[in-house]
């Protein structure tokens, strides 16, 4: 008897499975129907504008999935505000951890309609995502007028994502240590030469043992090296924008200067606080070179440490560039989403880009200098020390383009080989350059350095 029952169950399961395989999926969305195109709301934005007084998808329900790796509440609040205007659109926020996000997302996008309609982008993964992305349905000129970095994201006359804010490096200093060394605001150095003197004053040694590092760049070798070499006018890529050039005079001088901090000036040590962020937070290092997200790191992990920020010092009064920057990007749109989803996604992106207030919240959260020109002079943003530090010379910061990870990774390895393994600067940088060259030969990467307004002055 039980065999018969089992047989019937198996047959039914097979039928179910087969019917599932054969059926064509049709897009059915749940939610409200919107019948009111007149929302009574004002048009938002300067050049990229958003008029809320219309129906999306003819007011019929549509659902979107938006993949993130961070801040679901903050991004979710943008979705909520949009859903209030268009109640027929439901945006489901899906937050994945950063680790694994860049494997999961492309695989999900390969599923076409089943993949997320919207997804946050990091420009270093552009090479993985671009084949799945739909260009923004917004006039490129309007985008360029509102967002000062938009031009650098133009690909064949189309824009697939832009920056809502940009991040760069600055020097963070411990205010208590600064005061204890008899330093005041007047002593904030503008050049590396002055910086080295300040760092010496902030260094404490007892019986030949380092107690307090005046300056600690451990773990930031590759970032600081790029910063200083740009100041000297050495770009990371050749004129074609495809081949790395990290063995130029500027890069070698930059590395030598960094080694001199520790070896000649003895203001720090490669073995003292191997994680400079932790070392600064634990009150062992007086100054560190960090990018904007360090502000959030300190507030979360070491809120009691009083610190200030100043712009990265320069090699001379008129550097080629102060530092490089990198953008935090607006979402991408899945080009294989259903027509209903694509319409809603394009409308949502326009809302997102015209909404300066929401961009401001994002910039505050990540300590980013806003890419939206309307927010440049925003007082609240300028109160943030990381933003304030870079605001004066922001146009003199360069973006090398959506650099694949191989450049940073190999410069990091080179840094460790030079600092910890005692290898020669020239040979190590050459090895790194060769490896990066091979890695890039398999990618369609072209640097954006040539878009920089002082590019013709590079050496």
């Amino acid at each position, binding site marked *: 008897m039980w065999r018969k029952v089992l047989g019937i169950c198996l047959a039914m399961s097979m039928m179910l499975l087969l019917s599932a395989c054969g059926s064509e999926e049709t897009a059915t969305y749940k939610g409200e129907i919107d019948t009111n195109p007149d929302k009574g709301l004002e048009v938002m934005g300067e050049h990229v504008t958003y008029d809320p007084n219309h129906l999306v998808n003819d007011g019929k329900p549509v659902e979107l999935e938006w993949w993130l790796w961070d801040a679901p509440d903050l991004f979710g609040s943008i979705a909520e505000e949009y859903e209030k205007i268009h109640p027929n659109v439901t945006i489901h926020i899906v937050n994945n951890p950063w680790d694994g996000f860049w494997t999961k997302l492309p695989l999900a996008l*390969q599923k076409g309609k089943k993949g997320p309609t919207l997804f946050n982008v990091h420009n270093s993964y552009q090479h993985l995502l671009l084949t799945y992305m739909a260009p923004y349905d917004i006039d490129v000129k309007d985008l360029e007028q509102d967002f000062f970095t938009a031009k650098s994201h133009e690909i064949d006359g189309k824009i697939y994502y832009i920056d809502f804010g940009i991040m760069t490096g600055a020097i963070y200093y411990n205010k208590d240590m600064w005061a204890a060394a008899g330093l005041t605001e007047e002593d904030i150095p503008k050049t590396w030469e002055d910086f080295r003197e300040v760092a010496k004053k902030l260094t404490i040694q007892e019986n030949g043992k380092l107690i307090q590092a005046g300056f600690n760049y451990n773990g930031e070798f590759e970032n600081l090296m790029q910063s200083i070499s740009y100041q000297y006018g050495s770009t990371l890529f050749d004129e074609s924008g495809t081949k790395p050039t990290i063995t130029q005079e500027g890069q070698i001088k930059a590395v030598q200067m960094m080694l001199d901090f520790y070896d000649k000036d003895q203001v720090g040590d*490669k073995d003292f606080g191997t994680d400079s962020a932790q070392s600064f937070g634990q009150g062992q290092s007086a100054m560190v070179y960090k990018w904007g997200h360090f502000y959030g790191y300190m507030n979360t992990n070491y809120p009691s440490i009083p610190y200030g920020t100043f712009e990265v010092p320069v090699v001379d009064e008129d550097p080629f560039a102060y530092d490089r920057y990198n953008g935090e990007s607006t979402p991408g749109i899945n080009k294989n989403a259903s027509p209903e989803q694509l319409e809603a996604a394009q409308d949502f992106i326009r809302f997102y880009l015209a909404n300066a207030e929401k961009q401001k919240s994002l910039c505050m959260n990540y300590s980013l200098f806003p890419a939206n020109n309307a927010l440049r002079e925003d007082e609240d943003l300028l109160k943030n020390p990381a933003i304030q530090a870079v605001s004066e010379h922001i146009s003199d910061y360069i973006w090398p383009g959506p650099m694949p990870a*191989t450049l940073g990774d190999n410069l*990091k390895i080179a840094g*460790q*080989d030079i600092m*910890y*393994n005692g290898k020669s600067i020239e040979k190590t940088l050459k090895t790194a350059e060769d490896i990066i060259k*091979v890695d890039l030969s398999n990618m369609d990467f072209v640097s954006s350095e040539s878009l920089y307004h002082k590019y013709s002055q590079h050496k």
Partner: protein
Amino acid sequence: MFKKKRALQSKSEIVLRNMVVTFLVAYMAIFMVIPIVIAFAGSFHNWNPLNGTYKWIGLDNYIRMFQYPTFWVSMGNTVIFCIVVVAFRVVLGLGLAYAISSRMVKSKTFFRTIFYMPTVTPLVAVAYVWKIMYNPQFGLIDNLFGLNINWLYSSKFALPAVMAMTIWKDFGYAVILFMSGLLSIPGDYYEASGIDGANAWQTFRYITLPLLRPTMILVVITSLISYLQAYVPVMVMTKGGPGTSTFLSSYLVYDQAFVKYNFGYASAIAFFILIFTAVLTLLSFKLIGEKS
């Protein structure tokens, strides 16, 4: 009646056998053979499954592999890592197993448990704890021995530091295997050697060691295979650094495949490791197994 029952039993056995074999064959095909074939084909392509790139490039990945400086560094590190860790695992495992098996030692279960504990502790957790212990400023090791060494950032000490952690983590497994090997040696041999007047060393050298050879082969071969695949300790403790001082070949595969998404190149390295592992395994069989 009897015959009929036997026939039925035999039929059910055949069905069961067929089911089990089918399951195993399917399992091996899905999780071993097909991925290996796909990876082998991929090793001749510029392959990035995440953006759909799959372009035939012939032997370029293999040529690039032999020209890539990090590849040779990682292979050198892997050989050193395997030799040292396997040697320590065998010597420590055998020594401790022999000591615990001695009649003079009481609380055998206690020692067995203590020695086996690191083996059952998650590797990632162990690696993190050791990473903290190696910290030059607040780590236990420098403070305990009054040293001033930045273990994980020194090209001299980083690889030995990772090896020390791995030895500590894994020696317990060898202890258990050698203990079971020692227990399986018949007592008659020891009685006979005692009658012949053999001392402790002679008994160990001429009775215990030869009879433990099958266990030794098992420990060495399984250790070699697992250490040629080791990448977790490196990922947690050093990320291959300083420079490329602790790059192991499997970490290079991981780095190329899952960090840089060069799946074709990673597959080429993986195939080289596969052949290398097969050769080393055969050599080990030859060297240790010959006399047995």
